[in-house]
């Protein structure tokens, strides 16, 4: 008999707790809605439906690199951002102001506590990555999710700008990117030349195609990517080191974490040095992961530096 009594008293505690909870939320909700003024909001349609977001968001948290890049480019420095690599922090190419943005975990595992502590008024995320967190994030602030980081990056830039209430800003940024491409193409007469971005992956060699971020930027600057059947539906393709000669192009760019360390060139490439006369190491922190208008400009700056040097 004794255990049963304990059990029932425990239930009463739970019930009391539940009532208190209800009372608390009851008290909480009116105060919550009072702070949001209906006049100052816009409706944004996104991967999870439609959300009313502040017309002029002040405290934005972003969970995706392309959103961070776009927000900084638009002059809306977020109060918090998820990063790809916590040890490396916010990418250096975004500038000094971005370096002070608080990190809220990694892009794949954002920290909801830290996001709530920042008291944001708008949260941007990605359905394909943060789907499980939507309800939690929506409890903190209006939350807008783009579909997938794998969609064309310029579309994601436009989506982010729309969520931030600055659609014109996105067009300006993307036009500036296109202008810079044209400038480089003209100055260095890149038309007709081929360029291939190569990413070493422990013996294997990954080639990036024209639909990848870096590949599309090279094509934007006038280069063509050497033809492959795979480009019809792949953004990159893995190559056996036995087939390294298929990576040949007029300009070959090899990504690395340290551009000054020639030992990061894979042996398959260095053993065939004759076949790769114009080969350069480039920083993967923006060539691969710097998706966005600022990253695009950084890639183009780097490309111009390389073209001017050779």
């Amino acid at each position: 008999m004794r255990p049963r009594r304990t059990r029932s008293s425990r239930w009463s505690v739970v019930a009391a707790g539940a009532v208190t909870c209800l009372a608390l939320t009851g008290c909480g909700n009116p105060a919550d809605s009072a702070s949001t003024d209906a006049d100052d909001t816009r409706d944004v349609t996104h991967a999870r439906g439609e959300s009313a977001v502040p017309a002029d968001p002040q405290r934005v948290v972003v969970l995706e690199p392309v959103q961070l890049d776009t927000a900084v480019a638009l002059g809306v420095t977020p109060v918090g951002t998820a990063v790809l690599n916590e040890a490396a922090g916010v990418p250096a190419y975004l500038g000094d102001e971005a370096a002070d943005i608080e990190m809220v975990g990694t892009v794949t595992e954002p920290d909801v506590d830290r996001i709530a502590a920042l008291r944001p008024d708008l949260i941007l995320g990605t359905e394909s990555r943060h789907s499980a967190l939507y309800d939690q994030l929506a409890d903190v602030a209006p939350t807008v999710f783009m579909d997938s980081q794998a969609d064309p990056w310029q579309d994601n830039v436009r989506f982010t700008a729309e969520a931030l209430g600055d659609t014109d800003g996105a067009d300006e940024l993307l036009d500036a990117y296109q202008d810079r491409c044209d400038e480089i193409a003209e100055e260095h007469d890149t038309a007709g030349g081929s360029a291939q971005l190569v990413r070493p992956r422990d013996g294997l060699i990954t080639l990036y195609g024209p639909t990848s971020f870096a590949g599309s930027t090279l094509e934007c600057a006038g280069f063509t990517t050497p033809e492959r059947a795979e480009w019809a539906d792949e953004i990159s393709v893995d190559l056996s080191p036995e087939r390294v000669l298929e990576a040949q192009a007029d300009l070959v760019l090899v990504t690395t974490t340290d551009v000054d360390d020639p030992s990061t060139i894979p042996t398959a490439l260095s053993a065939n040095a004759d076949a790769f006369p114009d080969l350069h190491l480039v920083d993967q922190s923006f060539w691969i992961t710097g998706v966005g208008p600022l990253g695009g400009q950084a890639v183009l700056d780097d490309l111009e530096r390389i073209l001017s040097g050779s």
Partner: protein
Amino acid sequence: MSGVDPGRVRESSRSRVRVVGGERAHVGLDRREVRVCVALGLVALVLGFVGLWAGDFPLTPGEVMGALVGPPFAVVEPIAYTVVVEWHLPRVVAALVFGASLAASGAIFQTVTRNPLASPDVMGLANGSFTGMLLGLVVLGGSWAGVMAAALAGGLLTAAAIYVLALRDGLRDFRFIVVGIGVSAFLAATNSWILLRLDVETALFASAWGAGTLNNATAGAVWPTAAVVVLLLLVLPTGAATLRQIELGDDLARATGVALDRHRLLLLLLAVALVSAVTTVAGPIAFVALAAPQIARRIVGSSGIPLGATLAVGAVLLLAADLVAQHVVPLTVPVGVVTVVIGGAYLTWLLRREMRTDR
């Protein structure tokens, strides 16, 4: 030799050798086990409060109490209530219930297979659910509910496949383990291959899940799963009687009239259900199932596996590991990483101490 099947003789003598390892379960709580359980319960209470309070959202202990029970404690703002009751509480409950669940399944597996190193991995559940999760992620993309369903299906299908492949004139633990190792290795290779084909961030996310993480233990996922696990755990005492029969060895148990294969199957099904429920939400959290029964046996100092203490050890182990993963390690790591480190270090220490006293 006529009339005696040499394979059978060798097998049963093998199992008897392994019984010496002491993989026997018992439920009857002796006094020492009760004391251990009470002590672990107190530890769980303290750690549970820490779990509700600690985090990157600044809270005072008073605010935690306010959010939990209301007056006479401070009335808290809605977001603090959300953080404590809707975010932290499900995670703490998940750690406790899931830890107990994994520990219980480990105790069942180690008893049924009479192998101190057996864990649900023998059934390929970890690798199978990871394969399911990865396929779900690749095929279904973003839908998290779909991915969880795929993980559940992957684990259960793998367990079923291993059972069917290993089934031939009864369930022999030897064949069972070999088939389990084979199927697990096949799935592990499949998983590595899928991970290598994914883009690095998706692979990173999937790998964190594959290591076992409570980051996805949100209220919506935890409450129904925890309810299922608690219901399953209520069945455990009934099954434990059969476990005691099994501990006597196949031949003896048969002689006493226990329909052994059927009971083994039912027990394994229970263990599989316990693990699958946890894995669906938290991924394959390693080592709790393997280490908790062994740790409990050594703390209690019993010859068999003490079920009550095993559940308590599992619960405390997973909760402590989750707190360390969230608040002690400077970078974001999944809880499964910490359970293996803590569990492994503790098991090493216990083994070492045991050797000293043996000397």
